[in-house]
Structures are given as C-alpha cells and as structure tokens.
C-alpha cells in the first residue's frame, strides 16, 4: 500500500478503485471510470499548464527584448493570460464564405487533441503512467501525423489561398523534420531494447544524451522545427504568408491553434526529457515516486527554457535554409550516425560501462566532426545566390558619404 506522501497519485488511484468497488461497481466499469477520471484530470492539467506557459514565455521574451512583459493584471502580470483567455472566449467566430464547414471546425479540435494525446503515454514517475504501450515511441511519432492532418484540414477548410499555401508549406516542413527525428529516436530504442517508454526510462542508468549526444542534438533541433517555433516559425511568418493556415480563424478557434502550439512546445520538451534525459530518474526517485515527477518536470522545464532562449535570440530561417538544414545536414548525419553507433555499440557493449561511455562519446564526436566537414564543404561548393550582394549599411559615420556616392555597389 502506497503512503500518501511517497506517491500521492497512486494513493489516490487505489483509494478511488476501492471506493468504486465498495460501491458495488463491476470491476470492468471501475477500470473505465478510473481511466476516464485520470484522462480528464490529465487533460485539464495540461491545458492549465498552457496558461502558465503563456505568462512565462511572454515575460521571458519581454525581458530578452528589454521590455517588461505583462505587468498590469495581477502581481507580475500573472493574471494576464487568464484575462486573455476570457477575452478570446467572448470573441465572435467568423466563418469565411465558401468555407468547407466540417474540416474548418474539426481542425482546431484535432490540433489540440493531437498535442494532448502525447500525454497519454508519458511515464510521469516510477508508478504513474497512463498507458504503458508496447509501441510507446512509435505512438509519440504517429500522433504527430494527426497534427499534420489537422493542419491540412484547416488549410483546405478555410477556402483561402494563403491558408492553403501556408498549410502545405507547414506540412512540408513538419514531414521533412520528422525524418531525422524518427531516425534519432531509434538510438534510445537500440540502447534500451524496447519501445516501452517506461523501459526506456529505466534503462537510462547513464542518460542517453551522454551515450549519444549528436542524435540527441538532432532530435532537439528537429523537435523545435516540428513545433514550428522560432527560428523555424515559417508557418506563421506574418511577413510572408500572413499567418499561415490560421488566417481565417477567429475567436476561440484561433485560440486553440495557439494553445496547441504552446502545448506542443512543452510536450516535445517532455519527450526529449523522457528519451534522452532519463525521464523521471534521479536520486531517490525509485522509493519516492513523487520526486520522479518533480525531476521529470524540472528536466522538461529546462528544455523548454532552452527553446524560449532559441526563440528569443535566433533570427528566422528562410524556407530554403530550413529545407537544406533538414535534408542536407540533419538527415544524412542521423543516418550515418545510426550506422556508426550500431556497429560501435556492438563491439563496446561487452566492455566496462566507463569504456563504453567514453568510446561512444569519442565516436559521436569523431563522426560529427568528419561529417560536419564533409557536409559543409559540399554546401560551400553548391551555395546558391539568393540575395543581392552586400550593400553598405548606413551607420552614423558613413551616413553622409555613402548617400553622397550612392552606395558602394
């Protein structure tokens, strides 16, 4: 019997189970009710987390850009997102003329649902997980496919050129980046010998980011791109495609696309933490599962902060750069590293753990250096001219002279 302060969620689960059984509910139905209660609680928690995220992200981005960020509603602007939610809740829903009603209305729902469905399989601590699927990782990747479907539905349903082009462009980006993502997700599977997320977590006596730093880096980059955040935020590049697939949406329907984006940002951090950062593992997490939950949230919070840092500091890529980065750098890198690691680990897996770790680290570094040299030299040879030659920048000291001469070019 679990003690409350060791593992509150299991404690509550057992309590609910006993309560239902004592009421004379059949065992099968008790299971269904327990699952349903768990699902409702988890979905609500995830959606509430988005509100916190909205505040955190606006505040931090504000600070990075030397602004205050939200500071009016509540202490430190903490109630700002709630005010925003209330406002967007009462906005008019505009359905554009000629829209395909069913896809148009289904798209935001499916988009949020796809982002939420990831939470069903995440092992939150040693004892608390929703479904321990025997194909956990593949499920995580497959749910992404539903998100792509939602984007296509939105683009098609809006009856708008910008929406459709934006949607197809987004989907092109998402599907491209899921290739290196899938390939680097194979590495944790190889090391742990299972697709169960719980087994993958348990197998990480040494975090997989130490054993395979380069695949982890590829996975992180690809997941930032999968979320469509800066610097990969072409899907909503205001200057190019108005707002991508969500142009025609208004009110809460638009809000849900926004929610889905923020939710996805956190779920990919969660996935990264589970696959490469040891999930709930940490000192004392086995005997006090509640600590495991804290560790997991800390780890994914750090990854999430890293993503906010990317967003605040990196300029947006052009679409051809996005595609080049994926197909000409990440994908070959992931493929070749997969081969190298598969061969190397076969010879190293019988040796001492320390030797194995150091060996894998060296091989990762070596492969990365060699491939980086090879790939970037190819790139340099084939770099295409896409912009004008560099023109002089107007600085205070050359302002007058350059305008007098009409520029160097």
């Amino acid at each position: 019997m679990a003690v409350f302060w060791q593992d509150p969620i299991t404690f509550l689960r057992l309590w609910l189970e006993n309560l239902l059984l004592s009421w004379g509910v059949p065992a099968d139905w008790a299971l269904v009710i327990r699952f349903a209660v768990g699902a409702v609680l988890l979905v609500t928690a995830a959606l509430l987390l988005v509100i916190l995220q909205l505040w955190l992200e606006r505040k931090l981005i504000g600070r990075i850009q030397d602004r205050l960020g939200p500071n009016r509603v509540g202490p430190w602007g903490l109630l700002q997102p709630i005010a925003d939610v209330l406002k967007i809740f009462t906005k008019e829903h505009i359905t554009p003329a000629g829209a395909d009603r069913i896809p148009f209305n289904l798209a935001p729902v499916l988009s949020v649902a796809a982002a939420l469905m990831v939470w069903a399989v995440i092992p939150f601590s040693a004892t608390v997980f929703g479904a321990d699927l025997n194909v956990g990782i593949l499920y995580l990747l497959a749910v992404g496919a539903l998100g792509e479907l939602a984007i296509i539905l939105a683009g098609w349903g809006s009856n708008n050129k910008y929406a459709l082009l934006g949607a197809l462009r987004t989907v092109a980006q998402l599907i491209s980046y899921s290739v290196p993502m899938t390939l680097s997700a194979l590495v944790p599977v190889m090391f742990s010998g299972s697709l169960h997320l719980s087994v993958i977590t348990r197998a990480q006596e040494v975090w997989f980011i130490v054993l395979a730093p380069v695949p982890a880096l590829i996975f992180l980059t690809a997941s930032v791109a999968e979320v469509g955040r800066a610097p990969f935020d072409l899907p909503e590049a205001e200057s190019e495609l108005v707002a991508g697939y969500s142009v025609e949406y208004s009110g809460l329907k638009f809000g849900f696309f926004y929610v889905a984006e923020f939710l996805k940002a956190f779920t990919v951090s969660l996935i990264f933490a589970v696959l490469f950062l040891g999930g709930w593992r940490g000192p004392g997490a086995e005997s006090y599962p509640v600590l495991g939950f804290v560790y997991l949230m800390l780890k994914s919070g750090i990854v999430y902060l890293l993503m906010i840092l990317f967003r605040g500091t990196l300029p947006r890529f052009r679409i051809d750069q996005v595609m080049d980065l994926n197909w000409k750098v990440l994908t070959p890198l992931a493929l070749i590293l997969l081969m190298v690691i598969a061969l190397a680990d076969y010879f190293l897996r019988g040796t001492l753990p320390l030797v194995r770790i150091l060996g894998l680290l060296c091989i990762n570094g070596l492969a990365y250096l060699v491939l980086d040299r090879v790939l970037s030299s190819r790139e340099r040879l084939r770099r295409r001219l896409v912009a004008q030659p560099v023109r002089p920048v107007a600085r205070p000291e050359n302002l007058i002279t350059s305008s007098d001469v009409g520029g160097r070019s």
Partner: protein
Amino acid sequence: MLNAWLYIGLFTLVAAALPAIAIFLAGLLAPKKPNPIKNATYECGVETVGPAWTQLRVQYYLFALAFLIFDVESVLLFPWAVAYQQLPLFAIVEAVIFLAILVGGLFYAWRKGALNWQ
C-alpha cells in the same frame, strides 16, 4: 495491451471533447453579426481572384516523396532496433547495408537537385 489502448481511446475522446465543448460554449457566448464583407476571404484587402484551391508546384511533391520513403524505412528499422541487443554481428551489418542503400537514394535525390527548394 487492450487495457492500455482502452485508456488511450478514452484519453482521445476526452482530449477531443474538451476543446469541442469549449468552442461550442464560446460560440454560444460570442456575438454573431456576420456580414458579407466580414465573411469575405482574407486576401490582404484585395478582391478575391479565382478559386482558392490553387495549383501547387512539384517541389512539395518531391519533399513528400523523400519523406515517404524514409518514413517507411525507419518504421521497418524499429523492430530491428528493439531486437538489437540480442542480435549477432551479421544481423547488424545487414541493417547497416539497409541504411547504406537508402543513403545512396538520398544522395541520388540530392545530386539530382530534388532537395533544393526553388
């Protein structure tokens, strides 16, 4: 395993129902004053020209194609990766050959220029 899937099924239902209910409630609360100008398709203020469902360029197809091939291939590799710890060297070399063939495909598409965004 069916229990796990039962949970996922319920979770999916809840995850889809919650936003749907929220949108429905918001639709009840929100004002409804449609007019033809407001409902017109947004095209930066310019009159809409032609049907919205326009033609695309072949570029999109080529990326989707490369993705399709690599996706299927990585799916085939997942069972192999699960069994990896128990496999002899022969089987690992076999998978490496499998990967090498696809690297060849990638480089063909690259040389051919199919991976350049125009």
